[in-house]
């Protein structure tokens, strides 16, 4: 019966992570508030996780969905910023995003399964950077923003988004692989406790 190209598990993973991407983009949780209005976008992370957990095809699919959500959001709710109008163009909103999954996967694969948390962190950083650089590059090439603005945004937002991508990807992949390979105490509770403790002690 299995005469199709992909194992069912990867298909469903792609579907679930795309749904996560869509939901995050629709709620204010997709954006970490930074200071008075500026936000860091973590929407690239489900795409990165798709690549790390499911492979390049899954990662690219979720990346495409991410691009499409930003396009549809720009088309239906351009109330977040004037630059949004340029995201209506799929060459700006979808095309650069397609590389998020692939770049993250390539970096992760270079570690050949060892040092998973660090590998995932680097892959997350790479994916988020790919998102920032390529999207800003596309905006610049389309004449939407001058090079100085693009570079400024890249340095101010892009680096922090890359760090956020690294932290989040590493945490999720570590928790996920911990669950899959260990029966018994799940790793999620450890991650949650660590994060909560660090949050409370601030």
């Amino acid at each position, binding site marked *: *019966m299995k*005469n*199709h*190209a*992909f194992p*069912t*598990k990867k*298909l*469903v*993973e*792609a*579907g*679930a*992570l*795309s*749904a*996560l991407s*869509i*939901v*995050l983009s*629709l*709620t*204010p*949780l997709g954006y*970490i*508030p930074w200071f008075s209005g500026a936000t860091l976008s*973590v929407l690239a*992370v489900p795409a990165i*996780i798709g690549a790390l*957990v499911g492979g390049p095809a899954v990662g690219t*699919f979720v990346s495409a*969905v991410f691009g499409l959500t930003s396009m549809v959001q*720009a*088309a*239906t*709710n*351009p*109330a977040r910023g*004037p630059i949004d*109008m*340029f995201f209506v163009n*799929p060459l700006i909103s979808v095309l650069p995003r397609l590389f998020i999954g692939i770049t993250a996967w390539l970096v992760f694969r270079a570690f050949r399964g060892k040092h998973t948390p660090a590998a995932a962190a680097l892959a997350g950083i790479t994916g988020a950077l790919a998102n920032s650089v390529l999207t800003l590059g596309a905006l610049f090439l389309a004449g939407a923003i*001058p090079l100085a603005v693009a570079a400024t945004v890249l340095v101010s937002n892009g680096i*922090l988004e890359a760090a*956020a991508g690294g*932290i*989040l990807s590493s*945490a*999720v992949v570590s*928790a*996920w692989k911990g*669950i899959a390979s260990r029966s018994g105490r799940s790793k*999620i509770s450890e*991650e*949650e406790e660590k*994060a*909560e403790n*660090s*949050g409370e002690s*601030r």
Partner: protein
Amino acid sequence: MKNMEFFRNVSIGRYIGGDSAIYRLKPGTKYLWLLALSIPAIASPRLPGLVLPLVCALAAGAASGLKPRFLLRCVVPALPFFALAALLQFLFSFPNDSSPLLFKIGPISGTVREGLAILMAVFRTIDLMVIIGLFTSVTSESEITHGIEDAFAPVSRNGGWVHDFALVVGLSFRFIPIIAGELEAIVLAQSSRGASFGTAKGRPLAKVRAYLPLFVPVTVRALERAELLAEAMDARCYTGNGRTRYVVYEGTKHEGLAKGLAFAFCGIALAIAFML
């Protein structure tokens, strides 16, 4: 977190019930029209090509009982941002801009080229807002989720990847309310344990780490559900081809006509867009 109600914001569109011929079309045909209207709106390089999809969408809306004013009303909240975007566009000039100057107020100078760029971007956005508004008003939520597979049906064959592609897209639509519910549950649970997500002070990295108790569980739960669902699907052989469905859409007598018109419209609109 000020607003914890996510379910309200995650519904797919504002469906308005009705019974005209357009409402009774099969969802696959409605998707076809969505594409036929959107592709010229996205692709046309010049202004005249953007007007035709808008007019057609408004006409289709009128034909199904939606006044044009209703569809255009969603554009109104965006007008101030169009103005802001126009201002930004005028502030930063294109390199090597040699088109005639429209006006000059202090440091802000506007050329014809910038004016056209703004008009086109504004029109494109209005186009897409009206088209998507029309689609969601005419297509109920179950039609949206089931219809995505119908839309791909003509193109997929046995064992082809397009078949799986349609399955994945349908799956993600179905997962959206589930994940939204998970997200809400986790936010409430973690907040009741004292975790704060948005209001923490400190270096940005500390704020990112404050998001971990929210992001990690939601993502891992999503992956867990995916694994369970994949096992369930495999156990029931609900993979590959020959998947049956509980809900069947009959459509109207004019399905073929509607589909043909969609292709014709798209072709004509694209031709006009690129030739005028």
